[in-house]
């Protein structure tokens, strides 16, 4: 194992492809996910959901359900106290408790098909099902609206009569479906476009898509008579679950203990609560544990798929290819309550490029579909798809190589992004160069095959993180982190701990602790868990090292400057080395009690300095002109990881995000009928890529160290889903000569466009 140094830290495990410590349980079926927990005496909970996309809830009669033998509790809106308006972070988005309580259980209205209206807990799933059928809900069905642009029209059905657009001067006196207008501005747009030799303006439309995690939401809750509660759930943030549940149920945070199960995918969709407050409320009433698991149909209808959107982009360039001005207008669906990712969509739209004059405006629009939750780089894939498509058109019209054009305009260290910050060292150029050097870039193409390239960006976050390191009596190390491991985190954190303390990798045992074991941890999201967790471990290790040095000083009767911790041991320096021998972690462990007590450290930080991760994707595809079907032939991802703590899991993020992007670009979409009901609430007709749909995804790991992280780490999880939409749209244009401005580019759409140009012949 080669030793490398990054930012001054010697590493022998970090950067290698260790076998993840939690791996054996996962390949044997032993690992326990949300639905794999059971408690003796548990009841099964089930939700009754609105069949209407928009309706006033006139009355709810639960008496027949309550009388059914085997039913132990029934809850409705009456069981949840209303919450005053208060915005809180939800991943990289914001939410409002007033909306959360209404999303979890409808109050005045059902605002989407699938909205929870009541819930029961019964002795079996069959009884719970029958009980739900016995609940009589009287609805006053209202007209509905789904599309964001339609929802913005005057006269559109109004979801909330207390929603007044924020960000508009003067404040509107009439409510609407537009929750917010946001803008970012840089330079002088009019002047900018004056300088342009070429101006391209296009409008794009994307359909709503779902994160598509294979594990449905699941929670098991139990409430005791003294108000203490325990929850096991599949979540990206158990401390957030604790906070929301405490708030909604009126419990002390300290009395609620949440354990995060292994999580079967989240991608942002499990950063909010759905079942947990319901299970708690039911358990409180029934005085027994209550287990709730969503069906696949419920996941599609009642969790948090992302926005569909309409995006208009206008860019101006000189004939030499310099981008001089860029504007965009984004209209994003928020679903039933405000809070679409339009803000990050606005921020990220032009972020990969150094453009003097920029204006981006975004609208957060509510409509009658499930409340949107985060989906991997929320908002950015949509806006950057539009921008990367226009960039590609500029390249074609100016006859400039699409990589060279991006290179020419690339954001670099020192570039001021239109959304505010000045970039430190970043790796966009490196990823562009990396792609250009691949054999893929130069491979020949045949007729009906097209190659597309696109770049993308995500800013990444840090956030509150608490990790504890404990040295056990036998010198092994227990690592307790508080951010659920969604894809290899424990391997990365254990590697960092191993290198920091100089212990073998397999002597570090990482677990994700429950909320009672650690200080507050913000959720796993924002590509933050490896970045922040490793930072916190460095802190915790520092404490341990300082403590051990102090103990050594006592033992050796030495002064602090006579000892140092290096290479896994406290070492006597200079003359002291004649009378004292170095002591490893294991050596200290043996005498811990005698030298002061248990050895450990806790890293408690609000991680700052998250560095953005830029990526460039290259894709070849082939179109069957007689059917419009596209086949992905070849795919390369180059992305800046700063420093890859575990290369295989970084590659895994690149590959997984790319394939989600392939699905989003080609086949995934929420299909609504004219009645506002979802027509494809299952994996049969919500078409995610299967193994035979995609080729190998080649990856190039670029590492431009993040100077603000002790190892140079940048978050990597989200950027990979940003470039694929643009890259694939650009490849389609190259294969067919047609610019597709609507996603997904499904075969009926493609064939229709080919037919219109008389191109649908082999």
């Amino acid at each position: 194992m080669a030793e490398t140094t990054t930012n001054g830290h010697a590493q022998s495990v970090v950067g290698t492809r260790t076998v993840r410590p939690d791996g054996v349980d996962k390949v044997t079926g032993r690992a326990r996910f949300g639905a794999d927990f059971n408690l003796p005496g548990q009841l099964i909970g089930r939700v009754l959901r609105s069949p209407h996309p928009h309706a006033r809830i006139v009355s709810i009669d639960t008496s027949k359900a309550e009388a059914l033998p085997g039913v132990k509790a029934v809850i409705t809106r009456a069981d949840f106290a209303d919450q005053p308006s208060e915005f809180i972070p939800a991943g990289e988005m914001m939410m409002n408790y007033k909306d959360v309580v209404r999303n979890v259980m409808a109050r005045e209205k059902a605002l989407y098909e699938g909205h929870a209206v009541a819930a029961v807990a019964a002795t079996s799933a069959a009884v719970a099902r029958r009980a739900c059928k016995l609940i009589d809900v009287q609805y006053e069905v209202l007209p509905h609206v789904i599309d964001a642009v339609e929802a913005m029209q005057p006269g559109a059905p109004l979801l909330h009569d207390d929603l007044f657009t924020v960000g508009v001067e003067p404040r509107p006196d009439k409510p609407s479906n537009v929750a917010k207008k946001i803008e970012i501005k840089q330079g002088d747009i009019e002047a900018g476009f004056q300088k342009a030799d070429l101006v391209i303006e296009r409008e794009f439309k994307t359909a709503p898509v779902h994160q598509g995690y294979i594990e449905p939401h699941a929670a098991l809750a139990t409430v005791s008579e003294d108000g203490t509660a325990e929850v096991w759930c599949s979540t990206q943030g158990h401390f957030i679950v604790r906070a929301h549940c405490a708030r909604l149920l009126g419990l002390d945070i300290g009395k609620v203990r949440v354990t995060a199960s292994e999580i079967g995918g989240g991608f942002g969709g499990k950063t909010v609560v759905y079942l947990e407050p319901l299970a708690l409320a039911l358990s409180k009433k029934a005085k027994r544990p209550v287990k709730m698991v969503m069906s696949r149909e419920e996941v599609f209808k009642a969790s948090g798929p992302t926005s569909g959107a309409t995006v208009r982009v206008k860019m101006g360039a000189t004939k030499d290819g310099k981008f001089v001005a860029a504007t965009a207008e984004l209209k994003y669906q928020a679903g039933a309550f405000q809070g679409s990712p339009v803000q990050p969509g606005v921020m990220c739209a032009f972020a990969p490029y150094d453009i003097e004059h920029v204006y981006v405006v975004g609208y957060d629009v509510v409509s009658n579909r499930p409340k949107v939750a985060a989906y991997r780089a929320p908002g950015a894939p949509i806006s950057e798809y539009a921008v990367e498509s226009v960039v590609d058109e500029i390249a074609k019209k100016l006859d400039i190589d699409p990589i060279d054009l991006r290179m020419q305009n690339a954001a670099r260290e020192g570039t001021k992004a239109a959304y505010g910050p000045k970039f430190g060292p970043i790796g966009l150029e490196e990823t562009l160069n990396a792609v250009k050097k691949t054999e893929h870039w130069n491979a020949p193409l045949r007729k009906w095959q097209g190659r597309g390239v696109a770049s993308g960006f995500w800013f990444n976050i840090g956030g509150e993180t608490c990790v504890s390191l404990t040295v056990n009596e036998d010198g092994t190390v227990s690592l307790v982190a508080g951010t659920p491991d969604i894809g290899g985190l424990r391997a990365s954190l254990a590697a960092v701990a191993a290198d920091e303390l100089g212990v073998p990798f397999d002597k570090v045992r990482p677990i994700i602790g429950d909320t009672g074991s650690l200080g507050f941890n913000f959720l796993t999201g924002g590509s933050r868990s490896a970045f922040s967790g490793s930072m916190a471990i460095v802190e915790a290790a520092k404490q341990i090292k300082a403590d051990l040095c102090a103990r050594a000083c006592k033992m050796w009767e030495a002064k602090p400057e006579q000892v140092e911790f290096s290479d896994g041991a406290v070492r006597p320096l200079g003359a002291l080395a004649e009378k004292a021998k170095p002591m490893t972690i294991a050596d200290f462990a043996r005498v811990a009690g005698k030298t002061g007590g248990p050895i450990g450290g806790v890293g408690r930080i609000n991680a700052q300095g998250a560095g953005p991760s830029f990526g460039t994707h290259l894709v070849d595809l082939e179109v069957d002109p007689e059917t419009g079907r596209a086949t992905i032939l070849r795919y390369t991802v180059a992305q800046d990881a700063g420093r890859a703590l575990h290369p295989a899991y970084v590659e895994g993020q690149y590959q997984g995000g790319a394939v989600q992007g392939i699905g989003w670009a080609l086949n995934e979409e929420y299909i609504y009928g004219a009645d506002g009901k979802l027509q494809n609430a299952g994996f049969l007709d919500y078409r995610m890529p299967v193994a035979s749909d995609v080729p190998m995804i080649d990856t190039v790991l670029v590492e431009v160290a993040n100077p603000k992280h002790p190892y140079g780490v940048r978050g990597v999880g989200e950027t990979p889903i940003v470039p694929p939409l643009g890259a694939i749209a650009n490849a389609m244009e190259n294969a067919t000569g047609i610019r597709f401005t609507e996603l997904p580019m499904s075969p009926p759409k493609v064939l229709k466009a080919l037919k219109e140009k008389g191109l649908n012949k082999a």
Partner: protein
Amino acid sequence: MRYEAPGTVEGAVALLAGATGEARVLAGGTDLLVQMRADIVDPGLIVDIKKIPETRAITEEKGGWRIGAAVTGAELKEHPKLKKAWPGVVEAANLIGSTQVQGRATMGGNLCNGSPAADSVPALIAAGALATLAGPKGRRDLPVEDVMLGPRRLALEKGEIVVSFLLPPRPPRSSDAYLRFIPRTEMDIAVVGAGVNLTVDGSGIVTAARVSLGAVAPRVLLVPEAAQAIIGSRLDKPAQERLEAAARAACRPIDDKRGTTEFRIDVAAVLTRRAALIALDRARTS
């Protein structure tokens, strides 16, 4: 919900004929269990026919092949002689769902589920297959194209089940092919399905043909006009164009979440031509 697994055809028929409420036949279960879970159907009685030997056998019969209604797609694929004689039928049955689904799904169930998008049905119709039914009044044979009358509507009377299919003897230089259009590479319900079965003579002229289209009408279609378009030809360009035109003319598809009307008609023509060319190629080398 009652579950019975009779060992004889007569036993199954008696159970179904005597059922008072909703009764369903269970073969592979790849449609029935999904519908039960989705609350689309709530049978009071399930009759599992897999213990009836006749429904599970593949035997040569009078130069043709008798295939039990409850033989799985995977078992069809593992039968080398059948695969050689009827590659189109076997490949159609093996396009249903995934490897896991093919381990259970049957042609009997695929037909009796009553979906015009069923994958194995166009291939069976193109093959000229007969369905052998057994009911309270005894046995009868129906051409497969006459079994499915419309979405979820079958020509079966109360108590009748499909016991087996009979594929006719194959003249020399005959073969078949089935193609379907789906947006992904696997796992989707057919947006269009095309089955072509043909025979060529020594000089390469098509002497017999049957063409069947799925997912383009309320039932799976037998398209005699499409067959006529290529009989007597070498499937040259003009014949292919006639074939495509006949396929287009036969379609009366719907607009739904899987495809538009226009798309289905266009693709039906393309797939029919492609399937015919594959069948031709196989027939020439058989």
